């Protein structure tokens, strides 16, 4: 009867594991220990497995440990560009040229006509202006309104960029404003627009350069890791081949 119980414990590896990891009750523990005191085979096995467990402490994960953060996608999304406007579609210089042409055309009361007799450009700057007073006052009202619209659009444009208030003009466009002061103001608006666009461009370039540099660094690290990995695999292959060669030599010499 006793021998049967001893054999049961010898074959009960589940009980052995419970004992090894201290997950058995007191009575089971005493039973196993009583068995180990008389069974050399089981005692040796417990000692050997305990030795293996003590070796596992040596196995530590590689350093450095990961160090990352989870960032929601909307926090890193590239800001959507503003809807395309004709301001952005055209280069700054062309906008400036077009604007100056419009202003000069309006101020100088230029008449540009393309007809059978070819291209006709006629200025009604001085006398012509005064001689056509009713017409000119109507035209003036139109271009002043257009300029006011242009100025408000530019201001809106600046505000959308959000990089500061637009340059303050000392006066608003009104009927008493001189044409020269309007020109100066428009030119200032154009220059300011150009400077802002240049700044914007420079900032985008800086961001691009930073991103490219970060990508390059990441690629270098990845390449380096891949090289290490391949070297490691290669070394392992060499070791394995060496061991196989030793084995073959031993086998052949044994014959």
């Amino acid at each position, binding site marked *: 009867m006793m021998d049967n119980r001893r054999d049961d414990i010898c074959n009960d*590896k*589940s009980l*052995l*594991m*419970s*004992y*090894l*990891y*201290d*997950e058995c009750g007191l009575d089971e523990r005493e039973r196993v*220990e009583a068995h180990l005191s008389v069974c050399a085979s089981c005692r040796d096995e*417990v*000692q*050997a*497995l*305990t*030795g*293996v*467990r*003590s*070796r*596992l*402490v*040596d*196995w*530590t*994960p*590689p350093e450095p*440990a*990961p*160090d*990352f*953060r*989870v*960032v*929601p996608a909307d*926090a890193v999304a590239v800001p959507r560009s503003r809807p395309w406007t004709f301001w952005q579609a055209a280069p700054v210089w062309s906008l400036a040229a077009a604007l100056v042409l419009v202003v000069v055309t309006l101020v100088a009361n230029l008449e540009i006509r393309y007809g059978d007799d070819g291209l006709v450009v006629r200025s009604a700057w001085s006398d012509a202006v005064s001689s056509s007073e009713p017409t000119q006052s109507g035209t003036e009202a139109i271009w002043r309104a257009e300029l006011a619209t242009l100025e408000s659009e530019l201001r809106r444009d600046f505000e959308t960029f959000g990089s500061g208030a637009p340059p303050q003009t000392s006066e608003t466009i009104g009927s008493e404003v001189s044409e020269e002061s309007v020109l100066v103001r428009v030119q200032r608006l154009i220059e300011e627009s150009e400077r802002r666009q240049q700044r914007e461009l420079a900032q985008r370039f800086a961001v691009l350069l930073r991103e490219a540099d970060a990508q390059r660094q990441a690629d270098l690290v990845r390449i380096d*890791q891949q090289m290490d*990995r391949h070297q490691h*695999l290669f070394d*392992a292959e060499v*070791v*394995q081949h060496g*061991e*196989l060669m*030793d*084995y073959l030599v*031993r086998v052949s010499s044994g014959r």
Partner: protein
Amino acid sequence: MPGALMACTDEELVSRSVSGDHDSFNQLVVRWQRPIFALAYRVIGHEEDARDICQETFLRAFRGIKGFKGEAKFSSWLYRIALNLCRDKNRSAQRSPLNKVSDDVDVLDLAPADVAGSSLEDQVGWSELGSEVSRAMMTIPDEQRTAIVLKEYQGLTFREIADFQGCPVSTVKTRVYQGLTRLRQELESRGIDRVATFPSRAPDAGTRQRMRRVT
């Protein structure tokens, strides 16, 4: 604010994360990324894949945090995600372990011959023991290795491991036993067993706690 978060429990951080507090979730990342990486590395046996799995684990946790009802501990939930990813990786990659030995070759035959005149400590430096254990662990089947890792390094009970692996407790014990036995053979074949000083009995509670803390 970060200091205050450090003092929070996992449950508190999870609750805040569900409300959309990303800092709280990242505090959980800081707290658990190292154990998850260690777990993945030991189960997969490959550093780069373990880093990927670690990141993917937290990404999935981030996406699914609102569905986490708190029935289990947050760490258990993370372990489960990571272990599923490891299992998928093992299944898809079918990666050959380092120094894989063909089934028709007796591992004892591959043991390096003793070098006369040099001690074993000279032949196998202590610093190399970790890599030797690592290589030996990679030779045992995935399910046995996972059971051993969860038992030895995560300190889980057999019941908890059975829940993770979806099998009876007796199966887990068998896996651990067979894994340890295979590991013993592997280490003996590398001559490492002879530098161990075996205690006469099972490890005491202090030793077990020390081993559980190793992550």
